[in-house]
């Protein structure tokens, strides 16, 4: 379905990147549709989003499947003042195709984000509502058109709930040339429109700081203390993330260490990934990733090796194919081929 849109999309370039006098049109590919007053700066409401369709190859007894994995709508309001509103509504698995079976029964509407923001200054901003949990780098930019692989590193979703409902104080502190980003948040639980089969927070607090420490390099530190629906144990997560990008090369990684306390008992969970992206041509990239993960209930350390290609024929559009193989796979992680097409619209 998305492939059918390619010819049309390829003829459209972002209006802000041209000197066309009609550049201030209401719709710009990859930048959404500006409702209300598109020729003004504030633009009132903006409606946009992204979509991705995935393919998973067969793995042992598990057959192949393909799905319209996510169709996500972003709607936000920015009146040019101190208040802003942002929402993301997603339809997951709108269509799933497997050998002998095509179904829409798995479709689920998910409220990913819904928050109101007030900016006192650049350094002091308040967010209330449901937001992405500020742990690591991947979770904060997890949209498929922005990432290099179809699959997501384990530690970016297996070690903490990816969304939180509560309050967050955040901003950019003018401590360095590029500023230091920070976020402090707390959640009393009571997830806003919780996603089915997701182990949400019942209570949480945490913090994150990120800064450019060297030219072309960013470093982030995260900490979170929380309980989840599925178990009474309290977890504390310590995270570290880094990104180095230069001349279209990119080296990134994250590290997470989680302690779980159940009464007198204590268990550990830890994981990491390192990912290298290298340009092969103007639009084609090679991706290599290594992941290590040790869940609290397992004995061995899982290792996952991934190699893939990503083609970005234009900004906001990505076609990806990858092969992954895991060893000491006690948690049933799927091996094999994955491919996807993802687009911002």
């Amino acid at each position, binding site marked *: 379905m998305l492939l059918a849109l390619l010819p049309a999309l390829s003829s459209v370039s*972002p*209006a*802000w*990147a*041209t*000197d*066309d*006098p009609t*550049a*201030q049109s209401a719709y710009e590919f*990859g*930048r*959404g549709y500006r409702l209300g007053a598109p020729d003004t*700066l504030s*633009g009132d409401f*903006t409606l*946009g989003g*992204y979509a991705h369709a995935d393919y998973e190859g067969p793995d042992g007894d598990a057959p192949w499947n393909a799905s319209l994995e996510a169709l996500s709508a*972003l709607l*936000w309001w*920015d009146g*040019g*003042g*101190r208040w*802003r509103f*942002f929402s993301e509504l997603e339809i997951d698995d709108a269509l799933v195709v497997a050998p002998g079976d095509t179904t829409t029964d798995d479709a689920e509407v998910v409220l990913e984000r819904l928050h109101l923001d007030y*900016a006192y*200054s*650049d350094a002091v901003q308040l967010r209330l509502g449901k937001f992405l949990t500020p742990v690591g780098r991947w979770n904060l*930019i997890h*949209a498929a*058109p*922005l990432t290099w692989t179809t699959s997501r590193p384990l530690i970016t979703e297996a070690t903490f709930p990816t969304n939180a409902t509560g309050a967050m104080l955040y901003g*950019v502190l003018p401590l360095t*040339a*590029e*500023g230091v980003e920070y976020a402090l948040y707390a959640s009393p639980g009571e997830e806003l429109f919780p996603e089915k089969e997701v182990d949400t927070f019942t209570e949480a607090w945490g913090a994150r700081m990120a800064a450019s420490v060297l030219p072309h390099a960013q470093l982030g530190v995260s900490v979170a203390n929380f309980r989840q629906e599925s178990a009474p144990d309290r977890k504390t997560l310590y995270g570290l993330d880094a990104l180095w990008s230069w001349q279209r090369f990119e080296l990134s990684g994250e590290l997470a260490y989680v302690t779980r306390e159940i009464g007198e008992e204590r268990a550990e969970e830890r994981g990491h990934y390192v990912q290298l992206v290298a340009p092969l041509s103007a639009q084609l990239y090679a991706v290599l990733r290594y992941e290590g993960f040790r869940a609290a209930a397992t004995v061995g350390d899982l290792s996952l090796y991934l190699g893939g290609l990503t083609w970005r024929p234009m*900004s*906001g559009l990505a076609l990806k194919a990858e092969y992954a193989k895991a060893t000491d796979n006690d948690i049933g992680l799927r091996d094999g081929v994955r491919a996807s097409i993802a687009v*911002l619209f």
Partner: protein
Amino acid sequence: MRRLGLACGLAACLAVCFPGPTVAAAAQAPAPAPVIAVVVHPAAATGAVDADALAQIFKRRKIYWRDGVRIQPVNLPADHPLRQRFSQAVLRQTPEALDEYWNEQYFHGVLPPHVQASETAVLRFVAATAGAIGYLDLCTLDDSVRVLLTIDGDGRVHAADAEARSYCQAADLPGH
């Protein structure tokens, strides 16, 4: 005498047919890149703004002036020579290389700076919009805006002073 005249004629012919390095360099020397003026609305309470702060403004990470007015950065089109020079000098990247950055910002509900089609349009916009900041050829602006910084031909960012525009008068450049 006749031999001297012949030599001079030959030399003149050679000079025309095979111009020396000095003549060639003078003929092919590129025009100096215009000084870029970073301009704001005359009433904007900008406080001190250096090259780093300017980059943060045009990446929409710094969004308020000192008095709390929302900063409204405005760009020229991506292929405009001044936009290319401004982007390299201030953001250290071409406009095209910033695509991935703006894609990530879009995911969080932040759009790139507004684009005006020409320097004249930037001048009009900045003069009319509280909180606006833009850039244009130093020698094309007028008193409707205030010069905050200048960017020289080598990409160095300087604080503007009262003499900044005397460059245009001294050079007798178009517009003055």
